[in-house]
């Protein structure tokens, strides 16, 4: 799978390329908006890793240009500014995710994988936490490589949580994911599904924990 890294700092670009190659990706590196714009016209990449501060322009303008052409390539933005404002601005311009410098390579790869497994994307793959695995292609959960039968709702909740590994999924996000924006949702419906999922996972020996953050949402993590 080929990725494009647009980063003007040669040293960082080289290290990122090396890290991503170690993780099994092929990587092209460019350093300007101009180069990236022309290369993206002719070459297909699985994802774009884009630095915002580039010598010949703002990375966000490249992003808008890409989206303007209806190019659905997943874009992960790297920024030196940690402000929420920058994040919102970046996401509105069409970025799929963002990371504030400095970031762990592991985090970058995890976020990248989450993007590559987005619904609609060609390349299915599996998500893993401890001995729990979720295959996004056939939406099958397995514990210690043993396929598990879960209800449709439980599967949906599990998939969402595993896609957001390491991050809290708000209750609202779970509601939207399961019920869409239509129809009334019973106030405790989500809690019931999460409770059932937690019970199922524990009974079947999964070494993961589904945390409830009161008033905030849910998070799946390795059992501590």
């Amino acid at each position: 799978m080929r990725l494009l890294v647009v980063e003007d700092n040669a040293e960082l670009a080289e290290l990122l390329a090396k890290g991503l190659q170690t993780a099994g990706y092929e990587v092209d590196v460019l350093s300007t908006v101009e180069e990236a714009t022309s290369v993206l016209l002719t070459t297909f990449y699985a994802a774009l890793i884009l630095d915002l501060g580039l010598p010949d322009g703002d990375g966000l303008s490249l992003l808008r240009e890409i989206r303007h052409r209806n190019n659905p390539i997943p874009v992960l933005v790297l920024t030196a500014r940690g402000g929420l404002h920058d994040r919102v601005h970046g996401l509105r311009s069409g970025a799929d995710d963002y990371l504030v410098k400095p970031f762990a390579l592991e985090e970058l790869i995890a976020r990248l994988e989450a993007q590559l497994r987005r619904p609609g994307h060609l390349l299915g793959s599996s998500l893993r936490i401890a001995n729990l695995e979720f295959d996004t292609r056939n939406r099958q959960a397995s514990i210690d490589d043993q396929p598990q039968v879960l209800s449709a709702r439980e599967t949906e909740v599990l998939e969402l949580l595993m896609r957001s590994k390491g991050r809290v999924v708000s209750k609202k996000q779970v509601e939207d994911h399961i019920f869409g924006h239509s129809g009334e949702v019973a106030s405790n419906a989500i809690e019931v599904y999460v409770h059932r999922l937690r019970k199922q996972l524990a009974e079947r020996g999964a070494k993961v924990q589904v945390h409830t953050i009161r008033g905030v949402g849910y998070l799946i993590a390795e059992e501590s």
Partner: protein
Amino acid sequence: MFRFKSIISRIVILHVVAVVITSVFMSLALSWLLNYATNTIHDEAMQEQAVSVGEHLIAHSDGQLELDLPLDLLGLYSQAYGRYSYAVVDARGHVLFSSLKDNAALFPADKRSRDVEFLQQRIGDATVSGASVKKTVGDHAVWIQTGEDLANRDVLIDDIVADFYRNVGWITLPILLVLLIADIAIFRRALRPLRQASEIASEIGPARTDVRLPTDEIPREVRPLVSAINLALDRLEQGFRIQRDFTADAAHELRTPLSILRTRLDLLEDKKVGHALQQDVEGMAHIVSQLLDIAELDAFVVDPLEKADLRSVTAEIAQFIAPLALAQGKDIALTGATEPVWVKGNPEMLGRAIRNLSENAINHTAAGTTVEFVVEDNGTVSVLDQGPGIAEEERNLIFQRFWRRDHNKAGSTGLGLSIVQRIAELHSAVITVQNRKPNGACFSLKFTPLAAAQAGVA
């Protein structure tokens, strides 16, 4: 010296003074002119009458003079009418002819007088004003005097002149006052673009440096001032931009090398050493972030129109911080308001304040306990921990930059609470620090709540 505070008051007061002076002088001048004109007409008429009387003087061969007035003139000078009178006086002062009943002269005779003389004399109740004209008839030099009784009821012109000041003089005052009002209206109208420019100028502040004053409708005389103000604003905006760009540049310059370092460590073969160094980079990155936050806050200005939903900002921070807390075996909870709580302020900055409070709380709360966020409808957000609490004497120290209770404690920069305080200052928010029973601290920030209507939501 007296100084006027406003152009309008200067115009009104000075104009009123000018109006009073002008109206006095104008009526005096008009009244004098009128008097002069009537006197001239009167004198000329009297002289003509004297000449016309003189034309009827006939000198006989015996040296005797005879006055043969036609009927119309006899009527004019009749005692019954009483308005006009005449007398002819010779060089010795003898009255030769007179229309008066005792054959008297109108004016005392004076041989040295010029050929034409205008005189006035009181005779009984009457004031006679007239002319004395010298004429030589035959061998005789005579003075023909004609006069008019000014008190006669047919003499109107004097009454008009006398009344002029009282009647006509006062009319100039209201006319000039109307002029004054018109002037004020014209001036106010002329100043209107300036007033509009002032209103626009009142919107300019550190948060709105892009506003400029319009020059199109500004009077040419004032335009240099307005243009100069606009140029000054350009320079100020430039200054603000340099300050803001600095933090963006600094962030880039500091975080990129850290990124390189971090990635290099991630690629190290020796995972054990790598992990320890990664922790150091994390700590360094944290300090850099906080220093950048402080630098940004020094140049930051809250837009007075900005609003934030305190509940969603808090929820976002709780969501962001929860994995960190869970990793340390600590829990997070968000309680309180269930509906949006709109307050005045910048959402990004509010979030940073709450984030710093929560990082502080997670650092201090005991393992296995919960850090709780409480959002109240009155615009208050509180962060509660179950740590050692804050001693009374430390409550002012904790907000000082780089203050730390324990300088050896890892992950603490002593900057977090000073950032919170600066953000609170910028938003006129009140910080309260209390200890909880049996243990723990509660930090509260009270922001300015907005009514639903102001917040622009139904």
